[in-house]
């Protein structure tokens, strides 16, 4: 049965925020800073005000002065007195048409007195560095403290550095390496867009934002309004990936409507999305790892420095840090470990959350380092993982209760079994292309563990909708593309024993339901299925033909601060008996690559993903999260780079910021390791933020296997490999066969097949006719 929105989407009927029109609506365009750090000396708006079709030109003096933020509130609606990054909002033009607004925006003149700027995280935290904010600790909910040193947004530490260093000093084998990852963008194909209408003190908003209730709270806080007077309208999103969870330009749009007395629409040009929204944090991560002669890890120290950009307000967690970095050693049982994650303020675009925040960066570092350690120790890299994965019920040296279940071992075994068949044809899976002659081949693996979020707050309403048991389900979340609304339809239909055709799913405005923290942190399937279960029970138990409302976790109201995202952070709903022991999901990936020694070009032939799952509600949507995630991981590994220079993003269009096209995608294969323990009555494990994480390390490890050369900063480009080969003295000339020099984890690992622990079931989802 197709998705409930399939026909509308394919036939162009679905309306997104940019497609909406209200009577009397005006259009806005934003004037942005051209310098990274400066005092604003003056803004000349006369010429712009006189331009055709212009209703008004507005600056900080006209709008609410309170900053907004998802947790820390440090983001001004319009820059006031100082600009802190190239691209910051300085003024806004409202006109009768978008064309008129943009033409007038070009006529606004801003004079700046430039200030010294810090453009890298290293520069920013060095003693004596110029301050991005004079007193960042003064912002509401800031965690920064004067004692942290200059330009620190947040610093979290787990474990003991002394303990880890001591253990490393005793290790038989150690590595000490530093890895770096660039700034990359969500690459959603729907530019940020909003329409705001302020009338008689009431605010209505239609926006590409994935968490309507949180947004309402954030707007209420910033604009000092009663949340009951703000109504966020239902609107589907054209892709999110974490980039549309903040107020972004919505407070400005609301203010413009208030100031002009008419609805105002603001749709960004893609250059603005790429350069001035909230991309992923670039990172520099030092990993020290040590093991004994048997390949057992004795200690690891991970020290990550992230570039947080000019504002911290785009990060939602209360500790203003990235849980992917904090959890980066979660897959392994390490007696002594230390994790430090520092996020710096810089005069560059503010960073936010992007699909598994902090994880792709730290997994690249950790999983590359483990391969380098394996090479040093002379152990097969998959063996090294196998010997160190957390065992179910085993101790968590990092603290916290033992995992209820930890299927890393089974997931890795399933991957290794699949590798045995790689490159060969079977009825279910056509072989990936063979590498061109003369290219060097290699295989690499990486493992990732992610905490499963607990049940949080949400609410739904079931409404009788006509004869023979038709039901309308009102939900508080937008459809961002993952198929959440279809999951709701299918799940409720199954619960009630009716046809999915008799279930209509509708997102309502924030006035329609009490609560929800929004899409993200892979919590929607878990929360929605649980709410539906309870709703279905209540529906069947009704004595009158009336609507039924279910609220989960009603004790914890969704405020703007914090997010029940990472494992163990949310209060379990009453009656949730699985609440005690935390759950974790594993994804192990292998990449097979071929490298052209004459040019350094890397062709990723195939990526195999072994995924630890519970019950799967919609197999096709589930598979698409794996495929889409893997392709995004591949892009992070090999293609994507916003290329910042002097605080400016150089990749200012999708012509320069390359996201994978259909031709670029390697052959994809999935092995589902089913039977895992999920959350709630539906026993589901989230899938959205798994497969994009281990890919970069798997590819880097494969390139190292193929060439003996190690690339430690993403993206892995032909040029980097070429120079590494030249340096190693193996480039050019006739190909001398696979891998001169030390070869890391060459070829596929010999060893254990998939047969293993009782209850494990592996299904090969390679499918027919996959795009190569």
């Amino acid at each position, binding site marked *: 049965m197709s998705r409930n929105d399939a026909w509308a989407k394919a036939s162009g009927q679905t309306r997104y925020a940019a497609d909406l029109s209200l009577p009397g609506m005006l259009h806005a365009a934003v004037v942005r800073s051209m310098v990274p750090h400066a005092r604003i000396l003056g803004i000349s708006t006369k010429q712009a005000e006189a331009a055709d079709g212009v209703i008004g030109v507005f600056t900080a003096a006209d709008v609410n002065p309170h900053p907004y933020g998802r947790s820390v509130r440090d983001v001004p609606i319009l820059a006031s007195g100082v600009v802190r990054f190239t691209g910051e909002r300085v003024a806004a033009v409202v006109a009768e048409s978008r064309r008129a607004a943009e033409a007038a925006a070009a006529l606004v003149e801003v004079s700046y007195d430039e200030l010294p700027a810090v453009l890298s995280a290293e520069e920013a935290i060095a003693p004596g560095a110029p301050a991005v904010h004079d007193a960042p600790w003064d912002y509401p909910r800031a965690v920064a403290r004067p004692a942290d040193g200059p330009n620190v947004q947040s610093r979290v530490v787990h474990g003991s550095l002394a303990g880890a260093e001591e253990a490393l000093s005793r290790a038989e084998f150690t590595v000490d390496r530093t890895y770096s990852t660039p700034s990359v963008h969500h690459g959603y194909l729907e530019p940020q867009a909003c329409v705001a209408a302020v009338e008689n003190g009431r605010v209505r908003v239609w926006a590409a934002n994935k968490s309507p209730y949180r947004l309402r709270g954030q707007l209420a806080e910033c604009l000092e309004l009663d949340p009951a007077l703000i109504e966020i309208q239902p609107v589907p999103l054209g892709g999110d990936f974490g980039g549309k969870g903040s107020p972004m330009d919505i407070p400005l749009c609301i203010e413009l409507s208030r100031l002009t007395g008419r609805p105002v629409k603001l749709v960004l040009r893609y250059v603005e999305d790429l350069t001035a929204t909230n991309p992923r944090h670039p990172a520099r991560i030092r990993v020290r790892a040590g093991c004994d002669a048997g390949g057992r890890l004795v200690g690891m120290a991970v020290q990550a420095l992230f570039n947080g950009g000019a504002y911290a307000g785009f990060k939602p967690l209360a500790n203003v840090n990235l849980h992917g970095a904090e959890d980066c050693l979660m897959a392994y049982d390490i007696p002594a470990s230390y994790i430090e994650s520092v996020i710096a303020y810089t005069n560059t675009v503010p960073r936010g959350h992007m699909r598994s925040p902090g994880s792709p960066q730290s997994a690249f570092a950790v999983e590359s380092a483990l391969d380098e350690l394996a090479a040093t120790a002379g152990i097969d890299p998959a063996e090294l993982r196998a010997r160190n994965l957390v065992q179910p019920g085993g101790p968590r040296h990092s603290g916290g209760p033992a995992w209820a279940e930890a299927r890393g071992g089974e997931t890795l075994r399933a991957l290794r079994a699949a590798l045995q068949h790689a490159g060969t044809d079977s009825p279910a899976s056509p072989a990936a292309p063979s590498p061109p002659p003369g290219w060097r081949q290699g295989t690499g693996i990486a493992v990732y563990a992610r905490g499963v979020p607990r049940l949080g707050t949400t609410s739904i309403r079931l409404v009788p909708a006509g004869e023979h048991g038709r039901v309308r389900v009102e939900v508080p979340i937008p459809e961002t593309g993952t198929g959440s609304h279809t999951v709701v339809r299918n799940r409720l239909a199954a619960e009630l024993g009716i046809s999915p055709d008799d279930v209509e799913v509708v997102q309502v405005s924030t006035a329609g339901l009490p609560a929800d923290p929004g899409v993200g942190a892979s919590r929607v399937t878990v929360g929605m299925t649980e709410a539906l279960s309870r709703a279905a029970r209540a529906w069947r138990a009704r004595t009158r033909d009336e609507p039924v409302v279910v609220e989960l976790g009603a004790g914890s109201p969704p405020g703007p601060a914090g997010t029940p995202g990472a494992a163990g952070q949310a209060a379990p709903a009453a009656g949730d008996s699985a609440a005690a022991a935390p759950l974790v999901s594993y994804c192990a990936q292998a990449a097979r690559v071929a490298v052209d020694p004459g040019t350094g070009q890397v062709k990723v032939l195939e990526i195999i993903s072994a995924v630890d799952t519970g019950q799967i509600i919609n197999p096709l949507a589930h598979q698409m999260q794996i495929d889409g995630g893997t392709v995004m991981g591949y892009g992070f590994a090999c293609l994507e780079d916003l290329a910042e220079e002097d605080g400016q993003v150089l990749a200012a269009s999708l012509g320069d910021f390359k996201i994978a096209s259909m031709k670029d995608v390697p052959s994809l294969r999935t092995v589902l390791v089913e039977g895992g323990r999920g959350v709630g009555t539906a026993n589901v494990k989230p899938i959205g933020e798994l497969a994009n994480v281990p890919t970069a390390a798997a590819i880097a490890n494969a390139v190292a296997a193929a060439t003996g050369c190690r690339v430690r900063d993403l993206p892995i*480009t032909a040029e980097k490999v070429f120079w590494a080969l030249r340096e190693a003295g193996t480039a050019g000339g006739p190909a001398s066969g696979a891998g001169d020099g030390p070869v890391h984890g060459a070829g596929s690992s010999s060893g254990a097949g998939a047969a293993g622990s009782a209850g494990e079931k592996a299904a090969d989802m390679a499918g027919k006719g996959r795009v190569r």
Partner: protein
Amino acid sequence: MPADDLVFSAPATVAEAVAQLGGDDGEAIAMGGGTSVAMLLKNDLIEPGRIVWLGKIPGLRQLMAASDGTLRIGATVTLRELAAAEPVREHAPALAYAAGQVGNPRVRAVATLGGALVHGDPRQDIPPVLLALEARVRVAGPSGEREIPVAGFHTGFLETALAAGELVTDIIIPAAPGRRSVYARFTPGSEDDYPTVGVAASVVRAGDGRVTRATLALGGVGPAPLLVSRAGELAGRVPGAGDIEAVAAAAEQAADPVDDRLGSARYKKAMAREWTRRALRACLAGERGRPDSGPAGS
């Protein structure tokens, strides 16, 4: 933003077009498929007083092959048409192949050969191929018609030898029996991208295997497409590895690229050498269009 009195016209003949380009409407520009012009307009890089769309002139859209294999291709023949045209695939396969690689299907559906030539972006695929095929450009203007060899057509970054009021009417690809032409397009990252370097090679051999004529041109390695004259010295011999290497070294030497996201200047020079080697080897092995490119020695 364009001038408030911007005029758009779609003349029906070359003479009309020339008249409109030379009129006093302020700067008038000729437009083929419009993708380049639309980009320049959107980015406020041009502020024309008039846009003269050549898409309605039937005479510019014709593609003719003479019996000897000479091709005369109208300036507004689209890249999609070029890639599919049998005479082009037969007599100038490198051009057919290159045309089929530019951009994406939507670009190729509207972009014209003339536009590809005149835009003058050195990263483009078409100009080096035209150089290697020793094409000639027919131009019409206020002073009448003239012919310019492609070798002298590109004078700098986004600059051509066209005088004010002139437009390209046809591109002539001379016949060359026994010619083998290839275009190697190196896209190490996404396939849907400009090439880091592009190498177009053309070799004509006599029956005894001696080369009688050889040309080689590079794209992406300087402000304009680059003809590597050293390739001409292959004529009169049966080239061996040493001869090929000499041309490859000359290509690396002559290349003067910039650092950009497609690669550093140093890398592009090294790739100019590597891909010159591969393109020549392919040509000499009788390959046509797209070379079976592989690492050295394979």
